[in-house]
C-alpha cells in the first residue's frame, strides 16, 4: 500500500456506497467540527454528524457525498465511513432536498422539534453535497 494515498470506503448497511483512492478526506464529527484526514493520519475513531463529506481523489477530482450520521474509522491509511445512510452527490435529487429544506425551515419557525431539525440537517447535507450553494 502506497503511503501517500488513503483508501476510502463509504459503506451503508445495504451496500458499499463508494470506494476509491484519495489524497484527502474531509468530514464532520459530532462536537469536533470539520476534520480532514491526510495520508499517515493517526488512528482515529469518530461519530459523525449529518454532513457534506468531500473525498479528494488521487486524480484531482472531488467526490461529494451526503453522509447522514455514522462513524469514521481511520487506521493504516484506510478511511472507513460507516453510515446508516450515505449518498453520492451526483445521485441526489436537488429539487426534493430543496423542498424538504423549505418545509423543515417553515416548521422550525413555529416550534422546535428535534426530528425536524435533523431533517433540516439532512437537507443541508444533501444540497451542499449536490453542489448547491445555500
Amino acid at each position, binding site marked *: 500500500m502506497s503511503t501517500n494515498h488513503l483508501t476510502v470506503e463509504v459503506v451503508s448497511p445495504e451496500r458499499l456506497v463508494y470506494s476509491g483512492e484519495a489524497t484527502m478526506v474531509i468530514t464532520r464529527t459530532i462536537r469536533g467540527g470539520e476534520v480532514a484526514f491526510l495520508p499517515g493520519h493517526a488512528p482515529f475513531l469518530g*461519530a459523525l454528524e449529518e454532513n457534506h463529506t468531500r473525498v479528494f481523489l488521487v486524480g484531482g477530482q472531488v467526490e461529494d457525498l451526503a453522509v447522514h450520521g455514522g462513524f469514521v474509522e481511520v487506521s493504516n491509511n484506510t478511511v472507513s465511513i*460507516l453510515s446508516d445512510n450515505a449518498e453520492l452527490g451526483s445521485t441526489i435529487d436537488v429539487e426534493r432536498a430543496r423542498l424538504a429544506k423549505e418545509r423543515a425551515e417553515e416548521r422550525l419557525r413555529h416550534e422546535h422539534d428535534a426530528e425536524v431539525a435533523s431533517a433540516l440537517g439532512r437537507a443541508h447535507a444533501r444540497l451542499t453535497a449536490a453542489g448547491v450553494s445555500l
Partner: protein
Amino acid sequence: MAGGQERILRGRIRSMQATKKITRAMELIAASRIVKAQQRVQAAVPYSERITEVVKDLAASGGNTNSPLLAGRDEIKTTCYVVLTADRGLCGGYNAGAQRAAEGEIKADVLAGKGYEIIPVGRKAESYFRFRGYNMGRSFGGFSDNPGYADAKEIGQHVIELYTSGQVDRVELVYTRFISAGSQEVVLRPLVPLSKDTVAGGDGRPAGAGEGASSSYEFEPESDAIFDALLPRYVEARMYAALLNAAASEHAFRQRAMKSATDNADDLIRNLSIIMNRARQDSITTEIMEIVSGAEALGSGDQMDTWMVDLDLGTGFDQRSVRL
C-alpha cells in the same frame, strides 16, 4: 354412463394444469429472488465487517466501557426470543422450522421456571404463537421477503429498549441461516447483551485477528460517547444480517416447495390422463358393442353381409362410417 366419468377426469386434469402453472410461476419467481436476496446478503457484508472491526478496536483500546449493552446480567429471569419467519406460507418447512426451534427453547425456559417473551417477526410466527396462547410482545411483519435496514433498525431499537428497561434479561434471535441455495439451517443466536465472544463470533467471518496491534486511537467525541452510539448500530447491523439471511432462506425454501409441487402436479396429470384415456376407450368399446348387438337384433340373420352404420364416437373423433 362412462362418458360422465371421462368429463369429471377431464375437469380434474384441467384444474391440475392450472395449479401447476401457478406453482411453476411461484417457483420461477422464488428462484429469481434467491439470487437477488443473496446479493443483498453479500452487499451487507462490508458494513457488518467494518462495524465489527470498529467495535473490536474500540473495545480493545477504549477498555473502560460499561455500556449496559455489554454487561450481561447475573440472573437471567426473562428471555426474549425474536423469531424470524415469513409473512406467507407455501414455503415448505421454513416457518415450522424456526417456530419449532423457538418453541423448544421456550418450553425449556418454562420448565426451568423462567419467563419469556416472543417478538414474532413475520405474520406466520405471529399467528402461530398467538393461536397457541404464548406470551407475545410487539410483533413486526410485512417485509419478510424483502427487508430493509429501516425494518432492522426498528426491531433493534425495540429490543434494546426492552433490554435496557429491564423487562428482559437477554435477547435471542431465532432465524434460518442461508448457507447456500441448497442448504439452510435454523440457528439460535444471542443478540443482546453483547459479550466479548458475541462480538468475536458474529454473523460475518471471524475478523482478521490482531492485525496491526490495536493501536491507541484518537476519539472524537470521547470513546464512551462513541461506544454508546456504536453498539445500537452494531445490534441493528446484526439484526439486518439475520433478516437478509432469513429472506434468502425463505425464497430458497419456497422455490424447493414449489418445485416439488410442480413435479407432483406433473405426476398427477400423467396418471389422470392414463385413467381418462382408459375410460374413454371403455366408453367407445361399449358403444360399439351396443351398436353391433342392436344391428344384429335388427337383421333377421340371412342378410349378415354389410351394414353401414353411422357412429358418433364423441370428442376426438369425426363422425365416421364403420364397416361392420
